[in-house]
């Protein structure tokens, strides 16, 4: 018998949501769908209004977009908030979601001819 945790089949989720951000924390797998334009706009508006609540706002965005393992989200976010909201030194789930919305960490390749 193998000790390895059986890998989750993300096929149906990918078919439904497209690219996913998948993390594993304390042996629990969580998957997040991409942020929409409206969500990004709303998040920015909220952060502009209440910059002191940036951690809560970004974690809420992660929670809203959690499509797998959401039953573990609150507990994990409570214990490991930086895993989700990140900080200057460490990227969190929200940074990965932002990179996804940018088309990759480096963003699009643009050339002028």
């Amino acid at each position: 018998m193998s000790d390895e945790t059986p890998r989750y089949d993300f096929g149906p989720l990918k078919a439904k949501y497209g690219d996913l951000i998948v993390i594993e924390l304390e042996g629990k797998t969580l998957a997040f769908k991409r942020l929409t334009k409206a969500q990004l706009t709303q998040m920015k508006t909220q952060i502009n209004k209440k910059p002191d609540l940036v951690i809560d706002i970004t974690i809420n965005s992660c929670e809203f977009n959690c499509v797998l393992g959401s039953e573990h989200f609150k507990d994990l976010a409570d214990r490991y908030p930086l895993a989700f909201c990140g900080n200057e030194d460490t990227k969190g789930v929200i940074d990965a979601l932002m990179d996804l919305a940018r088309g990759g960490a480096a963003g699009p390749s643009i050339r002028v001819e």
Partner: protein
Amino acid sequence: MPAIDLDDARAEHGRLIRVDLRGREYVFRPMALDEAQRVAERLDAAPEVALSTAIAAVRECYLATQVDDGYRSDTALFEEAAENFPLAFSAERGVCARLLRLASEQLADQVKEAISRWRGSERQLGSIAEDLLAFKEHQGGQASAKALAGALHVAEGLDTLKGLYKLHLSFMRALGKRRG
């Protein structure tokens, strides 16, 4: 969904902006100066909807998307990309930022050209007033060479608070002389 010939498009618009996003290419025309100005104003006026403003601005410049057999103008493909990768088109690090920067570079070139034409001309108070009026015209979206030169001259004056004060004073005096 008409097919687009990139050579024809380049001939029409001068330059093309080609964006590779996840292996698919999207082609845009440069943003006109008055367009860029309007977009910049909207971005300043309503930062909370900056992303939507940026995407709308980029949509206006959209020309074509790479498909199997060439390039096609299909806004549905652009909308799909904007929905999937909205930040790729943002005014911060995305396509909109690049289009605005290109317009800004074009503006700077035009200003230099206008300044070189004006070099040697007398810069009296009356001409400063004209600069300010031209700048006002420039703010309204008319980017004539004279307006752009005026904009640059005013911008130089606005560089410091003292400069702003002096410029304002000159303007008021010049208007007083005109009226008097």
